């Protein structure tokens, strides 16, 4: 699946003109095992053994999610979050600081650069972060959407009907914005892709 802001997490090696320079081939890399989510879901004993070996030796592994529907869904939703994340971090600092909950001693919300030490000499970090508590990937998309549309000054009216109410029909999200704009359309398309729900403008 192509992503307008850069390479996809889904294999798009056939795409021409990737905007991300390749990872160098001439540097030493870690020998991570690749574990298949599809095989684990199928209770493949050999794959159980490989995961166990990876978890005892290095504790790091690649989880290949391309061969099952559940994995492809997660990859697709992660792709959409990358798009949304890109837009979120471009927001003006005063907007991002609305979500800074550190004074409330909360672990969650926005953290600007220089709030944590990186090493034992006390050098501070240069990372911006946004921590969201106990979300599903699906809810994370909604949270980002809300942050972005709030920043445009156009508060959307969101109405969400989970499938249990609609009785075997897919969940439905209605998103009403005061007026159409490039940002709102981009956000809405991202939301639709990330959640896999119908979105009515």
């Amino acid at each position, binding site marked *: 699946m192509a992503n307008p802001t850069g*390479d*996809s*997490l*889904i294999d*798009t090696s056939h795409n021409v003109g990737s905007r*991300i320079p*390749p*990872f160098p081939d001439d*540097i*030493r*890399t*870690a020998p*991570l095992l*690749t*574990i298949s*989510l599809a095989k684990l*879901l199928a209770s493949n004993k050999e*794959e*159980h*053994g490989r*995961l*166990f070996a990876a*978890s005892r*030796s*290095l*504790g*790091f592994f*690649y*989880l*290949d*999610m*391309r061969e099952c529907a*559940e994995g492809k869904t*997660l990859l697709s*939703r*992660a792709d959409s*979050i*990358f798009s949304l*994340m*890109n837009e*979120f*971090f471009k927001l003006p600092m005063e907007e991002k600081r609305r979500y800074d909950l550190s004074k409330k001693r909360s*672990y969650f919300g926005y953290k600007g650069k220089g709030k944590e*030490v*990186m090493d*034992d*000499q006390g050098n501070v*970090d*240069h*990372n*911006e*972060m946004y*921590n*969201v*508590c*106990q979300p599903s*990937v*699906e*809810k994370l998309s909604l949270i*980002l959407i809300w942050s972005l549309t709030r920043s445009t000054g156009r508060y959307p009216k969101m109405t969400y009907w989970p499938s249990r109410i609609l009785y075997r029909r897919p969940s439905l999200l209605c998103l009403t914005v005061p007026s159409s704009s490039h940002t709102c359309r981009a956000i809405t398309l991202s939301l639709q892709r990330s959640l896999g729900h119908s979105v009515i403008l």
Partner: protein
Amino acid sequence: MQSNHLVLTTLFRSLSYSLGLPLDTFANLHRFDVPSGCHARLIQVHPYLNPLQQTLGEHTDFGSLSILFNRLGGLQVQLPDSHDWVHVRPAAGTAIVNLGDAMVKFSAGILRSNLHRVVSPPGEQAGLMRHSLVYFCRPEHEAILKRVEGGLIDAEGEDDGEEGVSSREWLERRHLARKIGVGAVGFQRPGDLAKGKGTEGSRIAWVAKTA
């Protein structure tokens, strides 16, 4: 089931199986609807001029499982035998998953939580804005971080009698040790990071026997 929760449950069940434990052993310590430190993190790192610049110092992860989606390089792991730092190449269609301290505690050290860090991405990637999406799975707040009973864990010698702290206490200690301006529990002077030490160094990595 939410998609990331499905992945976690699958991994927990597989590890429980391999350790000879009831399949829901680990999943029951990470119930989705019970309060925990689980969270998703979005990270943006601006490009550095110095290619050797670290953006996140060496550490082990605080919780159970971390699922990382990234596109650029920069993540490095320390190899257990040589202690060399090597890059982890991103791979399309995959997440990079690693175990955290809680799995070491639960498994009496059979499972490994490895040291890792983040540096500038290598080569031409170094000049790019770096984004990452990580899902950190932690045990329920009140779960006690000590060995579970049964399976291969019972063969790891007698319980050393460690009382174990709750997941909440473990997270708070490790998290606050890096924070500035939170008083004595936080970072005030060089050397204070030891207050946030994890399970690194607690066990020599297991190496698969070759035929």
